[in-house]
C-alpha cells in the first residue's frame, strides 16, 4: 500500500515535472498556436488529482504546484482570462464538490463546535494553499465558495445543533469556540439578504444570539476584572491614578462596544443580546458604579487640560460613543446626578474647555434619554450665559454709581434654584470688605428684578487676595472660606481655633478642613502652635510673614468634600418618590391589580431612569398601605386595591 502510494506519488511528480517543462517550452515558442486547450486539459486533470491529494493530507511538492500555476498565468501573457477560464473555474468547481461532500459528512457526525473547528481549519488551509501556489486573485473567490459550502448550506442544521450545545460551551468556558461562533454570527450578519429566511423562522436566530451574548459577556467580564485588578493594585498609590485606570477601562469598554455593534447591524435579537451582555458593565468597578464612571469620563473629556488631548472631531466622536453606552446603564438617574455635579463644577470653576462641546453632548444625551432628562443641565448652561450678560450690566451699574463701588472686583454667578445640585448655604460671617460687595450686588439685583430672592453660597466662591509677606507680596487664589479666615489676621496677629470658629461661624468639620489647607498643607500661610500635622481645637494660629514661594501667584487648594455619598443618597431619596408616584399612577388607572402586575408595570414605567428592585417596590407598597393609598384585598392577599 505504502509502496504503491510512493510509486504513484513519484509518477505524479515526474508527470508534473514533465508538464512543467512542456509548458515552459510552449510558453516560449508556441504561444500563438491554437492547440493549447487540449494540453491544458491534460495538465489540469493531473493537477486536480494532486490538489485533492494534498487536501487529504498527503505530502505534495508545493513548489511544483506553484510552478505549474505560474505557467498558467504566464500563458495568459499578463491577462487573467486564460487562468480564470481554464484553471480557476475548474478548480473552484472541484473545490466546491470536495467540500460539499465533506461538509455533508461532518454535519452529521460532528458536534457544532467540532464542525466549526474543522471548517475553520479547512478555510485556513485553503488560504495558506492559495498564498503558496495559487494566484492571489483566487483567494477571495475560493474562500467565499468554501464558506458557502460550510455555513450557508448547513446554517439551519448548525443552529439546531447549537441549541443543545452552546450551554455546554459557556459552562466550560470555551472562549475560543465561542469566538468561532461569533465569527459565524458575523458571517450571518454580513450576508443578511441570503439568510432572510432564517431570520424569519421564529427562534431561528436565538441560539446564535444567546451564544453571542455569552461571548460578549465573557469579554466584558474580562475587562471588568482587569480593571478591578488594576484598581486594587493601584489602591496603595495615589488616588487619582485609580481614576486614570478607570478612565482607561471606560475607553476599552467603548472600543469593545464599537466592535460588537458592527456585528449587530439592525437585528433586534442581537441588540438585545448585546444589551444583556453589557449588563456586567453596569455593576461598575472597584466601588464606583458605571454611571459614575461614565460621568467622570465625560468630565475628563470636557474639562480644560483633559488628559486625553483630543482634537475637536475626536472629542465629538468619543462623546457620541459614550452616549451610546448610556443604553446599557440602568441607573440613568444616577448618571444624571453625577453628570450634573461634574457639569456644575466645570461651569462654576471655569473648567469647561468648550461651550460647544457642552451643548453638543447635552443634545446627544437628550436624543437618547429625552428632554426631561437633560432639561436641568441645559438650564445650567443657560444660567451661565445669562450670568455673563448680567455681569456686564453689573459693571455698567457700578460705573454709573461710583459711590456704590466696593473697590473690589466682584463677579457673581446667579444660579436658578432647582436646576443646580443642592449646595449647603451656611451663614458664614464674611469680613466687612466682602459684606459690602454682597450688599452692592443685592442692590443692583433689586433694580433688575423685584421678586427673586438671592441666597449666597459662599462655599463655591473664589477670592484673589494679595498677601504682603516680608520677602515679597504675592497673589493668593483662595476660596471665600479661606479668604475670610485669612482676613481675620488683618486685625489680629494670633488667633485660637475657637476664636476663628466663632468669628467665621462655621462647623468644626469646615474649620478643620480650612485651617489644614492654610497651615498644614503645601503652602503654610499660617503658623500653627503646636507645629503638628493635624488640627485640634486647642491650636493657635499666627500669620506667617516669612512665607514665600518662587511663584508670584499661587493657588491654595481646599480639598473638596467627598460628594459621592451625598449624590447616591440624593438619588436614592428621589427614587423613593419616583416609585411611590409610579405605584399610585398605575393603581389610579387600574383600581384593582395583582401584586406581580403592579411590580411589572412599575419596573416598566421607571425603567428608562433606573431599575427598581423588587424590595424597594415592596417597601413602597407597604408604606402606601400604611398611608391608606392602597389596601390588600380581603380575600386575595396578592391583590391590591386603590383607595381614592
Amino acid at each position, binding site marked *: 500500500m505504502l509502496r504503491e502510494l510512493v510509486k504513484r506519488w513519484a509518477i505524479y511528480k515526474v508527470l508534473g515535472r514533465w508538464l512543467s517543462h512542456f509548458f515552459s517550452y510552449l510558453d516560449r515558442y508556441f504561444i500563438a498556436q491554437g492547440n493549447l486547450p487540449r494540453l491544458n486539459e491534460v495538465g489540469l486533470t493531473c493537477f486536480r488529482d494532486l490538489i485533492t491529494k494534498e487536501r487529504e493530507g498527503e505530502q505534495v511538492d508545493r513548489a511544483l504546484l506553484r510552478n505549474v500555476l505560474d505557467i498558467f498565468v504566464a500563458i495568459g501573457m499578463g491577462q487573467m482570462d486564460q487562468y480564470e477560464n481554464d484553471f480557476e473555474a475548474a478548480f473552484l468547481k472541484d473545490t466546491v464538490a470536495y467540500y460539499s461532500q465533506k461538509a455533508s459528512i461532518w454535519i452529521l457526525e460532528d458536534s457544532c463546535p467540532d464542525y466549526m473547528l474543522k471548517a475553520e481549519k479547512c478555510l485556513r488551509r485553503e488560504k495558506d494553499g492559495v498564498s503558496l501556489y495559487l494566484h492571489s486573485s483566487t483567494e477571495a473567490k475560493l474562500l467565499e465558495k468554501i464558506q458557502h459550502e460550510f455555513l450557508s448550506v448547513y446554517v439551519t442544521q448548525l443552529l439546531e445543533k447549537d441549541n443543545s450545545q452552546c450551554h455546554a460551551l459557556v459552562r466550560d468556558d470555551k472562549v475560543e469556540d465561542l469566538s468561532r461562533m461569533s465569527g459565524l454570527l458575523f458571517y450571518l450578519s454580513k450576508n443578511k439578504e441570503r439568510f432572510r429566511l432564517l431570520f424569519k423562522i421564529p427562534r431561528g436566530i436565538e441560539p446564535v444570539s444567546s451564544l453571542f451574548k455569552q461571548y460578549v459577556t465573557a469579554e466584558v467580564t474580562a475587562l471588568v476584572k482587569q480593571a478591578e485588578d488594576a484598581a486594587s493594585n493601584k489602591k496603595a498609590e495615589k488616588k487619582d491614578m485609580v481614576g486614570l485606570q478607570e478612565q482607561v477601562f471606560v475607553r476599552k469598554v467603548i472600543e469593545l462596544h464599537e466592535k460588537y455593534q458592527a456585528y449587530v447591524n439592525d437585528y433586534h435579537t442581537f441588540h438585545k443580546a448585546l444589551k444583556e451582555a453589557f449588563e456586567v458593565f453596569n455593576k461598575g468597578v472597584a466601588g464606583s458604579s458605571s454611571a459614575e464612571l461614565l460621568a467622570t469620563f465625560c468630565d475628563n473629556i470636557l474639562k480644560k487640560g483633559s488628559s486625553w488631548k483630543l482634537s475637536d472631531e475626536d472629542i465629538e466622536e468619543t462623546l457620541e460613543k459614550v452616549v451610546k453606552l448610556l443604553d446599557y446603564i440602568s441607573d440613568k438617574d444616577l448618571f444624571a446626578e453625577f453628570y450634573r455635579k461634574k457639569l456644575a463644577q466645570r461651569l462654576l470653576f471655569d473648567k469647561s474647555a468648550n461651550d460647544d462641546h457642552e451643548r453638543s453632548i447635552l443634545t446627544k444625551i437628550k436624543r437618547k434619554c429625552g428632554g426631561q432628562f437633560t432639561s436641568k443641565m441645559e438650564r445650567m448652561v443657560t444660567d451661565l450665559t445669562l450670568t455673563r450678560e448680567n455681569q456686564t450690566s453689573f459693571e455698567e451699574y457700578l460705573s454709573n454709581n461710583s459711590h456704590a463701588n466696593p473697590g473690589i472686583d466682584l463677579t457673581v454667578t446667579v444660579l436658578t434654584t432647582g436646576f443646580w445640585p443642592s449646595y449647603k448655604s451656611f451663614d458664614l460671617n464674611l469680613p466687612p470688605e466682602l459684606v459690602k460687595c454682597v450688599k452692592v450686588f443685592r442692590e443692583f439685583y433689586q433694580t433688575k428684578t423685584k421678586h427673586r430672592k438671592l441666597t449666597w453660597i459662599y462655599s463655591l466662591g473664589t477670592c484673589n487676595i494679595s498677601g504682603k509677606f516680608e520677602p515679597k507680596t504675592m497673589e493668593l487664589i483662595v476660596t471665600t472660606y479661606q479668604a475670610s479666615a485669612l482676613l481675620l489676621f488683618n486685625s489680629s496677629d494670633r488667633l485660637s481655633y475657637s476664636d476663628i470658629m466663632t468669628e467665621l461661624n462655621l462647623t468644626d468639620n469646615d474649620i478643620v478642613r480650612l485651617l489644614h489647607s492654610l497651615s498644614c498643607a503645601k503652602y503654610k500661610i499660617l503658623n500653627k502652635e503646636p507645629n503638628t500635622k493635624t488640627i485640634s481645637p486647642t491650636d493657635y494660629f499666627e500669620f506667617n510673614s516669612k512665607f514665600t514661594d518662587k511663584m508670584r501667584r499661587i493657588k491654595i487648594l481646599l480639598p473638596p468634600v467627598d460628594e459621592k455619598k451625598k449624590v447616591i443618597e440624593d438619588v436614592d431619596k428621589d427614587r423613593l418618590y419616583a416609585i411611590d408616584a409610579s405605584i399610585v399612577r398605575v393603581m389610579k388607572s387600574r383600581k384593582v391589580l*395583582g*401584586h*406581580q402586575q403592579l411590580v411589572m408595570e412599575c419596573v416598566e414605567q421607571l425603567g428608562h431612569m433606573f431599575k427598581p428592585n*423588587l*424590595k424597594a417596590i*415592596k*417597601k413602597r*407598597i*407597604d408604606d402606601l*398601605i*400604611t398611608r*391608606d393609598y392602597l*389596601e*390588600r384585598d380581603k380575600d386575595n*392577599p*396578592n*391583590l*391590591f386595591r386603590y383607595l381614592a
Partner: protein
Amino acid sequence: MRRSASRKTGQPNSTPSLNSSPADLFRSASSKATTKELERIDALYYSYANGSSAMIDPEGIEALCSDMEVDHTDVRILMLAWKMKAEKQGYFSLEEWRRGLKALRADTVNKLKKALPELEKEVKRPTNFVDFYSYAFRYCLTEEKQKSIDIESICELLDLVLGSQFREQVDFFVEYLKTQNDYKVINNDQWMGFYRFCNEISFPDFSNYDPELAWPLILDNFVEWMLAKQS
C-alpha cells in the same frame, strides 16, 4: 326598663289565642329574668366604674382582674375586651360591658370568671381567631390617627395572642424584630401578613415561601434572616 314593663302589661291583650301558650309564659318569665340579669350586670359595672367618668378605667380593670384572680396582662382579658368590642384600650363603656357580659351570660364576678375558659375556646375557633387577632392590633392603637405600633409592643402582643399557637414562629420573629434596624413600627397589613404566614408557610424550612408574591417586605427579610441563620 320601661319597654319590658309595658310589654308585660300589654301581652295578655295582644295574644290572639285564647289559651296562653307555655312559650309565652316562658318568654315572659325569661324576660323578667333578663331584666333582672341586666340590672345585675349594670350594678356590677358601676361597682368598678370611675365615679366621675362613669367608665371602667384602667384602675377599675385592675380591680376586676384581681377579683377574678387573673393577671391584667392575661390574654383572656384581651379576649374579654374583644367580646365586649371595647374601643379604647384600658376602658370599658357601659354599652360595651353590657354587650360582653350579656353574651357571656355572666352577671357576677364569679360567673364571669367561670365564663373565661369558654370564651377562650370560642376565640380559638378559626373564624373567630382572625377577627380577634386583627382586633388585638386595633385595640393597641391608642392615639388619634395612629396606624402602626412600635416594635416593642408588637413583640409583647405577638407573644400574648399567637404564642400558644405558633410558639416557634413567634419566638424567631420576635428575635428578628429586635435585631433588625429597618423597621421601627409595624402596620396592620404586616401584622395580618404574619398570621397568614404562620398558617400557610412551612416552618422552619420555608419550602413554600415565594418572595415574588405579595408578602410584606418585612416577611421576605425575616425569611432571609432565618435562612442565613440556618446555614
